[in-house]
């Protein structure tokens, strides 16, 4: 039992810190650069990503294990996964709109953006290539989403500080944002090896 818990904790913290989806694996860069200007939109987007990542893993894991693998159809993974994610996001949006109005108002606007977010398809594909069990896959997805949240929140803070800085003309806008992202990624590099040491 302790062994399994340790293993899951290692997967979680690796996904959050050392193998951060945004800053180390470059998944979901578009929302990271586009929706990180204000803290509350950054948090809303990240929560929606965590939610969809967990749901997508829940839905694609059995489909892959009992439908694709048993019938030798693993080459259809990309196609099936993206369609499942797209359908799922639509369903969630409809369900939230109908039954959970407050949650829809806070997360709903971000949902259509998430279908084409490569972090969601990325986490599902990573779970398959690493041959995770269901529990490991779920932990990896939630951890990846939490890592996304962490990176978004930190970066929103950095960007709000940069807003009134006097930046050379050519670097204004996107270039300075990317260089700031580079420095945030550098700080995450310092965490390398920490998770392995603690949970090994």
């Amino acid at each position, binding site marked *: 039992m302790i062994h399994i818990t340790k293993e899951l904790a290692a997967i979680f913290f690796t996904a959050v810190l050392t193998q951060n989806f945004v800053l180390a694996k470059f998944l979901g860069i578009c929302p990271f650069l586009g929706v990180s200007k204000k803290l509350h939109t950054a948090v809303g987007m990240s929560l929606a990503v965590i939610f969809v990542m967990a749901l997508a893993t829940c839905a694609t894991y059995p489909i892959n294990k009992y439908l694709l693998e048993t019938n030798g159809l693993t080459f259809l993974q990309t*196609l099936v996964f993206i369609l499942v994610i*797209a359908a799922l996001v639509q369903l969630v949006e409809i369900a939230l709109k109908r039954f959970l109005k407050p949650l829809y108002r806070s997360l709903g606007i971000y949902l259509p953006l998430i279908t084409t*977010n490569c972090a969601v398809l990325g986490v599902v594909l990573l779970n398959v290539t690493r041959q995770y069990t269901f529990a490991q896959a779920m932990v990896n997805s939630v951890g990846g989403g939490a890592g996304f949240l962490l990176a978004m929140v930190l970066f929103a803070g950095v960007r709000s500080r940069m807003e009134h800085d006097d930046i050379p003309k050519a670097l204004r*806008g996107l270039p300075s944002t990317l260089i700031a992202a580079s420095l945030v990624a550098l700080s995450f590099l310092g965490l390398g090896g920490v998770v392995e040491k603690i949970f090994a």
Partner: protein
Amino acid sequence: MTERVSYLRELTKGFLRENPTLRLVLGTCPTLAISISVTGALGMGAAATAVLLCSNVVISALRSVIPDKVRIPAYITIIAGLVTVVQLLVKAFLPAIDAALGIYLPLITVNCIILGRADGYANSHNIPAAACDALGMGVGFTGALCLMGAVREVLGAGSFAGHSLPFWGTTVSPILIFLLPPGGFFVYGLLIAVANRISQKKGKPTAEEAGCAGCVCAASCPDGKKNKGGDTA
């Protein structure tokens, strides 16, 4: 005659004027992740160009058949099918490239250059124009990716396309940080700054703020509505 000239324009606009990576800022995820070597960049660029060309042609051919309401899911299905074909071909014939690209090869499905061109161009233009547009954008993407790959590989690994360069190793050792994620963000930022500087001198608008204007989701994006980027058309 005028037709031919405009096709040439459609073809060349992706090279520099509307370069998808440096001017429209689309497809940032693979750009940052794959650009650690020239070989990987070339493989990624070729795979994405092949998918883009096929998807633009297919979507342009089907533009009167696909209902407007379900166009995005239809495009995603077409693109995912094409990506699967390319994925199987690369796995069978170029296993080294497959290993270098990893999960970024299937992730071409959600590359916003491809979906962006499908929704922004192919669904309103005829097949030859869509093919020219796809080729131009594909070459522009590959070129920018290779440029970034070259900068990062030469500075970070001291080699070019796998061949080690004479300068490094004897006098100075390569700067590893360029191969690591922070180096990717840094080099990309500087390249966009250079592109901005050049276009400023020519009196053209700078790169779109965070590429939101080129994103298919811009209409439903809470931030995208507010910061409408400069026009590139």
